[in-house]
């Protein structure tokens, strides 16, 4: 079919763009590294993983390697992971709720994670503990939302959304209270900065912490993408077509929550990615989740990487990425929804 061929080609281009952007990102920064050296350093590192250390001659300065491997690599990988996770989760939520306005924080994962992080900062916990606390509270919130929705009579999807709104505002109130009682000289700025969302200070050791829960969530999202098409038709129609809607929806919501909580806990609140990227991908690839889901993964990774590059290079002082995604995301979203529709199947 013509639509599928076009979607496949677009996916290929997206993947290519991501690879180019990924490699270019290493060269960007106050300490310049030429792209050729970047490729050499990365290849050498990769090669050494298999062949052992010192098997390759080094033709670059040691500082260059430190910058590329220890400073930029973790941050670039993390930007890709978080972007991929947030937009994948956004696509899943939009499909499950068959509503293009849904975003990853719809079930309160972000609000819960923010509360968890603020609480950990208030108690003077280490960076690692802040991440874990954010992750735990993110999952806990969504668990509570699902429990409430399960017990309430009436339409399950509406109950989920209402319970999500209510518990979000409950945890937001908690976060506000923590800000009120936090020490204004060091804790309050730390909380505020965390809430803005940032990838600065990402270390190599942080990457696995985010990587495993994200993969655990992204794999089911990818595998269940055809079922997502059916779910997006609505509960009754999906069931009539043979989908075990309760089970499939539960797996999708849990997976999307897992990746959302994991990304919020390592990067803070980065809004808009989960809403804007799925919309952009729908314009590029169509609504068929067979292509939309992998497209969202790639496009989300590229989008956040691009914005993070701007965030660390635009001004002498780094701009928190959460501010930039909103600054870029909102106008871009307005452009997308006001753009005239084309007469094609995308």
């Amino acid at each position, binding site marked *: *079919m013509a639509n599928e061929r076009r979607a496949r080609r677009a996916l290929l281009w997206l993947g290519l763009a991501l690879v180019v952007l990924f490699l270019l990102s290493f060269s960007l920064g106050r300490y310049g590294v030429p792209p050729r050296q970047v490729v050499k350093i990365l290849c050498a590192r990769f090669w050494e993983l298999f062949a052992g250390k010192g098997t390759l001659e080094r033709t670059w300065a040691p500082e260059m390697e430190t910058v590329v491997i220890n400073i930029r690599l973790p941050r670039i990988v993390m930007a890709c992971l978080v972007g991929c996770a947030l937009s994948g989760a956004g696509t899943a939520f939009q499909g499950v709720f068959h509503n293009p306005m849904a975003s990853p924080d719809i079930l309160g994962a972000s609000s819960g994670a923010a509360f968890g992080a603020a609480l950990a900062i208030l108690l003077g916990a280490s960076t690692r503990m802040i991440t874990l606390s954010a992750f735990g509270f993110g999952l806990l919130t969504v668990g509570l939302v699902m429990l409430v929705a399960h017990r309430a009579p009436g339409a399950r999807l509406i109950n989920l959304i209402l319970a999500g709104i209510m518990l979000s505002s409950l945890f937001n109130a908690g976060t506000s209270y923590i800000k009120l009682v936090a020490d204004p000289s060091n804790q309050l700025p730390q909380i505020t900065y965390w809430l803005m969302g940032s990838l600065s200070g990402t270390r190599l050791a942080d990457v696995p912490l985010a990587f495993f829960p994200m993969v655990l969530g992204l794999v089911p999202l990818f595998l*269940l993408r055809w079922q997502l098409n059916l779910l997006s038709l609505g509960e*009754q129609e999906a069931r009539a077509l*043979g*989908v075990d*809607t309760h089970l499939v929806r539960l797996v999708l919501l849990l997976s999307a929550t897992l990746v959302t909580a994991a990304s919020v806990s390592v990067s803070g609140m980065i809004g808009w990615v989960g809403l804007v990227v799925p919309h952009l991908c729908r314009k590029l690839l169509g609504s068929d989740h067979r292509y939309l889901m992998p497209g969202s993964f790639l496009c989300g990774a590229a989008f956040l990487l691009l914005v993070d590059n701007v965030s660390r290079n635009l001004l002498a002082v780094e701009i928190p990425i959460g501010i930039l995604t909103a600054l870029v995301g909102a106008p871009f979203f307005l452009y997308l929804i006001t753009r005239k529709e084309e007469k094609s*199947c995308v």
Partner: protein
Amino acid sequence: MRLTIENLSFRYGGREVLHEISFTAEEGELLAILGPNGVGKTTLFKCVMGLERPCGGRILADGTDLSALSPRARAHRVALIPQVHPLSFRYSVFDMVLMGTSHSLSPLALPGERERAAARNALERLGISSLADRPFDRLSGGEQQLVFVARALAQQAKVLLMDEPTASLDYGNRLQVLGAARDLARDGYTVLLSTHDPQHALWFADRALALHQGRILAYGAPREVVTADLLQQLYGRRIALIDTEQGPVVVPQEGD
């Protein structure tokens, strides 16, 4: 496939929507279900699809109790053709039809060549192959309804439930969709079709069933079921039936 409903009852809140309904739809027959709004036609279909749980009675497809089946196994036997309704996302006609084949796949699988062939055959059978690449939401109501029929065919279930398929269609599209339903019955499908228009039952159905206040008021050949008395009872209006060479015609009486 023969669909048997035995003593089916359904309550919603305290209100009894269906009261011990029993009837059988035979293989190769189009059964029209008549009745005013809120009489339980949609509820009946939902019970058959497993979307609602009846509080009593059984639903059998060739002797198999449907309530014991998983959604996938049920979708293998019974297909629902819903009313035309707006969708949140845009899918191509081909993808819409392809979704009908999902019950034959594992939940983690994507449709392959076998499923595509089933979708293509379904489109061809209804003569709408040319629509395959068009966006579903850009079609006319009649075309959308035919796509839903095609999806049910791709599903390869032998019992088709059509819930007021003509409700939002213009006159020409109604006749086309009803004609397609009758042709499918001729080809061996068991078609249950709910409708607001008694004339449809007279024109297209093999048998008719009239539901009133949760009970079956009449059940049999359309000409025996659709009578002036019955229509008076169902709709509270004086309606006459005039015999013509092409069969009886329903005519509302003026002055009431």
